[in-house]
């Protein structure tokens, strides 16, 4: 593997010691995002109190970068208001990780998508005029998000 494909220490730390793995039984929002080409799957659970994300947990099927992106995303959203969380982009995930190999940028996009999906699910539940349940994010590779 070329050197540019290797992970830095922060990524490896989040991969080896992922934060907030698991599920929240009484979650206020659950998001699911799946990449169409490689099958990476992220599931994000959020607990919201007074419009502030007070807890977040994840489950991810994917490579080291996918797991690290999920892990750091849960850390980044905790304590943020819904509005602030929606401002998070995949670039913020990459920056927080200190960079990702070029071929792994898509993993950060998936993390952004799963966050949006969880927030969308939270909003649906809150307004109560739509069916609650898991909200599915986009494919993670439509190209709309910034991928450097």
């Amino acid at each position: 593997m070329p050197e540019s494909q290797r992970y830095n220490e922060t990524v490896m730390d989040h991969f080896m010691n992922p934060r907030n793995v698991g599920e929240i039984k009484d979650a206020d929002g659950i998001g699911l995002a799946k990449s169409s080409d490689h099958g990476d799957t992220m599931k994000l659970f959020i607990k919201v109190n007074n419009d502030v994300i007070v807890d977040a947990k994840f489950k991810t099927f994917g490579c080291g970068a996918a797991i690290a992106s999920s892990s750091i995303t849960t850390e980044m959203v905790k304590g943020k208001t819904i509005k602030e969380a929606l401002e998070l982009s995949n670039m913020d995930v990459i920056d927080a990780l200190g960079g990702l190999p070029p071929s792994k940028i898509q993993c950060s996009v998936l993390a952004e998508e799963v966050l949006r999906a969880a927030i969308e699910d939270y909003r649906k539940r809150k307004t109560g005029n739509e069916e609650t349940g898991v909200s599915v994010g986009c494919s993670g590779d439509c190209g709309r998000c910034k991928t450097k």
Partner: protein
Amino acid sequence: MDKKIIYLDHAATTYTDPEVVRAIEPYFTEKFYNPSSLYTPARDVAHAVKHARSTIAKWIRANNDREIIFTASGSEGDNAAIFGIANANRDKGRHIITSAVEHPAVLETVEGMKRFGFDHTILPVDKFGMVDPNTVRDAIRDDTVLITIMLANNEVGTIQPIKEIGRIARERGVYFHTDAVQAVGSVPIDVHEMNLDALTMAAHKLYGPKGVGALYLRDGVAFDSLIKGGHQENGKRAGTHNNPGIVGLAKAVDLAYSNMQENNERIIRLREKLINNILENIPDVILNGHPTKRLPNNTNFCFKYIDSEAILLHLDMLGVCASSGSACSSGTGDPSVVLKAMGIPPEVARGSLRMTLGKDTTDDEIDFVIKNLIGIVGKLRDMSPLVD
């Protein structure tokens, strides 16, 4: 980092055996001469190259030394065989038959032959990665000039029914090449019994140096050299002889076949221990490849619901070197084409792990890997959304 390394990626490459290193050392220094030169010191080197040729010819039961052409790699051997035989025989026909599980050195070359007007058929494989000889028979057309099917697969280790395919090829008058890069040294080769017209090998898979290989080409097969220039190798491969490489290849082949039975017995016992323990202790695991018709050193599994890169990173932290499949595709994230051809769904293929043992692999190493793999798979599955 003085962490102990457990190397289980011998299908990617092997270290050079110290005995081989000793044999080749003089050819870097006092025996540096160009064997094509006239003077006396060069004649000794020419003799060593000739001796290397005979040694390899003997172990694969070739008729004579002339049938061994030295190359710079397994990839070169595959390229040279496919281009060389097909192009030289283009008046007989322009159709090539290969299989879906070939190494890229074969598949890409066959694909590339389109530029020269050659059409091809890619044969499917069964769930074990095996080619059915009947499909070969059915695929042969009047204009088929070459069949190229590997002896043993680099990812899943499945050994193809080469003898049967060779018999069909010979009956129909079609040339037959096999990529034996993974098999030479651990599988006995008899080019006559296997009805082979050409065979590719590489030294670095059998404790020889990197950058050298050989192509067996049966006498009388028309051949168009890929590398043109000087008249080395009877005009079949130009380029000054790589004396140390050639001597090293022959030494490695000689050592491998002289000790094959003993080494294979040990390695197969350890392989079975690894396979059985993983299948017994980890749920939702598939053993890829044929249960018995496989290379002595190959294991390849799919761990459902998790990704192979994640497994490999964990193993790497423990000093265990393994692979997701072929070394060439590691890191691309693309599921293996070999596993796909075997009918394994992409999401399952994502969890593939290839561990290939070597002649120095120990019981302790295998025990360590089994113990830790159980934990790694468990940890990754705990965080997988695909597990209920």
